């Protein structure tokens, strides 16, 4: 095998310019893929972590039917204390769950005493919510980084429109599930940066204030947001919860609960899928580049070396070895292209990382692009290039191995 590699590499070096051009073409393809995968991947991961870490959580548990009418924030589809207890028991059985936070979501009116507008609010336990949404505190652009009883976190756009500042008093008025209206005066404890996505323009109040405003006799919960340790195990955790909660059925025998991952709750999932599709197409383009360039160069190599093939076949080289010689040439070209492409790609990613390029996404501005690459990304791209290089050289190699020595020796 060592000798086959030696011959292959010397043959590649024999046509140095052609080898370098082909390897460069492959390397350019690899660079594009590596940079695109790292930039798009980091953009996607950043937005997902913003959505899950500052608004939604990784997984949410609702009462059945709640998500279908989530725009109305229905107070009639909340989990009662027994159901909340059942959900918490199920959560407790899953060790991958890092934190969870029960929420009361409701809509109401927001008044600064001169003007009134509508508002969507989350009543939360501050500690549990901050553990479940570790990036929430970073969205509080003014005021203290927390949610205190008697205070409200007002979304930035609403605060600007209603001209309210930290420390101002406001009134929140809401209708409870029985139809009675109640209001409460709250102090503006902080201004919350608006974000793109569900819940991105919601305000926050303490859960006890929410209970008081809604005049709840017992604590009912709209949803339980969950954060998990390893985001890669999202679906496993969701399935595990779903399985455990499915035993709580209603009269029709259907589960009382619904378990949703962020993917079904956020429209960004479609953008994430589009990014994945684009990555796939870029990889397909890389395959085409490698396949065409390797096939082209190997077809030429076989054509130029017909007499040599005839000679080695005449002196008894078996067809399998002749095939190996050419396949190894293609393989070596693929390895060279992948190696150069990955090294240059990594350097570009490193430079982009140092450059701290900022971008805006929806309402969020000044997001810093910090492209990163996983070893698995490099491995996948390299394996694709090498496999395609071998496949691309297979047809010319087969042609060489099947050549009749007498015909090859006659070739001029």
């Amino acid at each position, binding site marked *: 095998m060592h000798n086959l590699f030696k011959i292959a590499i*010397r043959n590649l070096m024999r046509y140095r310019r052609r080898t370098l051009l082909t390897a460069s073409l492959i390397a350019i393809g690899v660079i594009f893929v590596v940079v695109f995968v790292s930039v798009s991947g980091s953009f996607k991961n950043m937005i997902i972590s913003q959505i899950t870490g500052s608004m939604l959580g990784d997984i949410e548990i609702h009462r059945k039917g709640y998500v279908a009418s989530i725009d109305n924030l229905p107070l009639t589809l909340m989990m009662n204390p027994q159901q909340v207890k059942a959900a918490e028991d199920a959560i407790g059985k899953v060790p991958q769950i890092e934190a969870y936070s029960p929420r009361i979501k409701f809509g109401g009116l927001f008044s600064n005493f001169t003007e009134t507008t509508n508002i969507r609010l989350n009543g939360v336990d501050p500690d549990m919510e901050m553990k479940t949404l570790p990036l929430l505190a970073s969205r509080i652009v003014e005021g203290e980084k927390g949610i205190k009883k008697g205070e409200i976190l007002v979304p930035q756009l609403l605060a600007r429109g209603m001209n309210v500042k930290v420390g101002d008093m406001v009134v929140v008025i809401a209708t409870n599930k029985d139809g009675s209206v109640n209001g409460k005066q709250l102090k503006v404890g902080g201004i919350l940066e608006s974000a793109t996505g569900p819940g991105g323009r919601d305000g926050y109040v303490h859960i006890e204030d929410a209970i008081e405003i809604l005049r709840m006799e017992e604590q009912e919960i709209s949803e339980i947001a969950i954060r998990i340790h390893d985001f890669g195990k999202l679906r496993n955790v969701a399935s595990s919860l779903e399985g455990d909660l499915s035993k709580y059925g209603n009269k029709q025998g259907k589960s009382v609960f619904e378990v949703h991952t962020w993917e079904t709750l956020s429209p960004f999932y479609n953008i994430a899928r589009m990014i994945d599709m684009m990555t796939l197409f870029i990889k397909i383009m890389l395959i085409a580049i490698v396949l065409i360039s390797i096939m082209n160069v190997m077809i030429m190599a076989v054509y130029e070396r017909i007499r*040599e093939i005839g000679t*080695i076949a*005449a002196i008894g080289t078996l067809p399998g070895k002749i095939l190996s010689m050419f396949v190894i040439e293609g393989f070596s070209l693929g390895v060279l292209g992948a190696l150069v492409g990955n090294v240059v790609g990594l350097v570009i990613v490193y430079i982009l990382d140092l450059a701290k390029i900022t971008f805006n996404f929806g309402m969020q501005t000044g997001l810093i692009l910090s492209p990163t690459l996983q070893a698995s990304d490099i491995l996948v791209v390299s394996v694709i290039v090498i496999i395609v290089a071998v496949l691309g050289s297979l047809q010319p190699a087969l042609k060489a191995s099947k050549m009749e020595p007498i015909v090859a020796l006659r070739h001029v």
Partner: protein
Amino acid sequence: MGLIVAENITKDYQIGEVTVRALKGASFNIEPGSFVSFVGPSGSGKTTLLNLIGCLDKPSGGRLLVAGMDVSSFGKKDSAVFRGKNIGFIFQDFNLIPVLTVFENVEYPLLMVQNASPGDRKKRVMSLLGAVGMTEQKDKYPDQISGGQKQRVAVARALVTNPKLVLADEPTANLDHKTAYMVIELMKKMRDDFQTTFIFSTHDQKIVGEAEILYTLEDGELVGKQMKGEEDNA
């Protein structure tokens, strides 16, 4: 029994709709250790005959035994294995592999065809390079040596596997007379040293006389056999 036994062998080529008979019933017997030449003008069938003996092609008719084997029944792989084991080739254009050094060219059949051990390879290659006077040039590439030297390397490569038979198709056609004569003398010396049968084709009248047995071909027919120092007995 001879090393090569040919009984009425024919070879037909199909060119479009026309069948051309390149060899018209040749019969001969070549003993081991012979130094044989097939002579004749271009198109007389010399290369065709050498290709058949070398298992590079199959006869259309007749029977051809090489080293006791009926080579007309061989498949492609069997032919390659048989050639690797029993036959060495010397080509008109030397056909050295340009990316390999002189040493590596001679080593190639031992390495890629016979899978010999590194120690055996080195010993055998150095011995052959010494025999053909190319030890000093062992690290040079084919484009760094002369035509005569290339053919010496080709002789060493043909002999390195200890074949029973070496076939040389017009081995001196691309060499000047002096070098051609030296190559033929080298081949004869190798025959003497290793008792390998040499068969070569030529149309060069000046070196024809170096053969010990001379077969004359004309229009695909074997028209004469002459032993050195004898009159044509065809």
